[in-house]
């Protein structure tokens, strides 16, 4: 029974560590929301920011929410973009389930 006891002990240790880290994560995120977030929101509000400064290589990766509608996926909606960062955005083009064709009535 040595193996099973050792295994269960190992699982208990790992489980405790994971639960501890998850608890730490929840505490850290709660602290961020209470203390860190107001200062960041003030910054966003005063400078009137709309986007994260993550990808600075192109206009539409620096300001994805402000970019022209067709900017990423320049070849077709499912294509990988020229810039690697652009490929992180899931293409979400309109996919209508029904279509309606409208034609002008021919003049008699």
């Amino acid at each position, binding site marked *: 029974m040595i193996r099973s006891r050792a*295994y269960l002990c190992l699982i208990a240790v790992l489980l405790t560590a994971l639960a501890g880290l998850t608890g730490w994560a929840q505490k850290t995120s709660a602290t961020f929301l209470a203390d860190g977030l107001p200062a960041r929101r003030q910054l966003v509000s005063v400078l009137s920011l709309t986007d994260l400064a993550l*990808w600075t290589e192109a206009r539409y990766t620096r300001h994805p929410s402000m970019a022209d509608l067709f900017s990423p996926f320049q070849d077709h909606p499912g294509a990988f973009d020229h810039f690697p960062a652009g490929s*992180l955005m899931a293409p979400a083009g309109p996919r209508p389930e029904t279509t309606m064709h409208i034609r002008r009535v021919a003049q008699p």
Partner: protein
Amino acid sequence: MRYLKILEYALASLLRRPGKTCAILVVYTLMIVVLASVLFLTQALKTEATTMLAGGPQLVVQKTMAGRHELIPVSAVEKLVEIPGVKAVKPRVWGYYYDALTGTNYTLQGFDTLANELSLLNGRLPREEGECAIGAGVARSRLIHLQDELILIDYDNIGRIFTVTGVFVSAADLLTQDLVVMPEGPLRQFFGMPDSLATDLAVEVYNPNEVDTIANKIKRSLPDSRPITQSELLRTYHAVFDWRGGMMLALFSSALMAFCILAWDKATGLSAGERREIGILKAVGWDTGDVLLLKLWEGLALSLLAFLSGCLIAFILVFWWGTPVLGGILRGWSVLFPALRPTPFIDFYQLGTLAFLTIIPYVASTVIPAWRAAVTDPDEVMRAS
């Protein structure tokens, strides 16, 4: 006690095939590390982005011409403030600057000089012409500090000197890494932008529930405009960090495929040795339930170990080690990418979902073929093998 004995036998059975067990454990753990890292990182960035950016403009109005973003006339403000429900309209002046010295792009942002001081700024906001505040990334790339001088080339190809009155602290890197902030007037002069134009308009409304209605009214009032609501803005970031559809998972899809093939291989049949083992166990008196319990324990023993170690490794990689592999993939071609120190937004629900999606399929792929072998006659099983 019976379960403990079956677990003991299951562990002994796994250790009888150390090579195969180790290989499965390593691949399984790696797969969990990849999935958990992507989940943790994207969830953390997504939550951080959406909570922070919720403090931004409720509605941004751009002008479009020939399908592209154009500078908007400031005179449009008068039309917009007349729309019922609109509280205030503020022209925003911002743009880009390519710094040939360092090969980096900066974002130049104008602001209202009446604004309060910022707690995330080391120093003070610029107040007059010839002053600016910069992000930590700009300071690093140009090797400058507080009260140093930043030289930028304006629209007329003339070098302009700005005194750095403030440097944003690293806690604000996610928002300010590439920012050069200066008052609106000097920024207009720098870009050569006339006072009658602005980059776009930020609209503040009285009732946040009316934003969509006001956006529709703006579209009717200014047909060549594109109103972008805050919910659209936040949805963009949900899409950007959507952990299901991304290049990170695409890059690691080969590892996922390998694991799927491994699980499929296990699910479609047992080896001759495993079938013989089941036959012998049944012949010596084990019933089908015991055999299934044994196989369940074998699968669970490996899965639990792989899942817990994988999640722990992913946690350490993402939140303590600064995402060494995924960060590189996220960075793309960005020169001024901020150091990733995401706030850990993790809950037991995420972990439960990950466990359900990884442990259950593997355990099922272990138990189902064993069940097939266990329900057949032991003599037949042993002869067939």
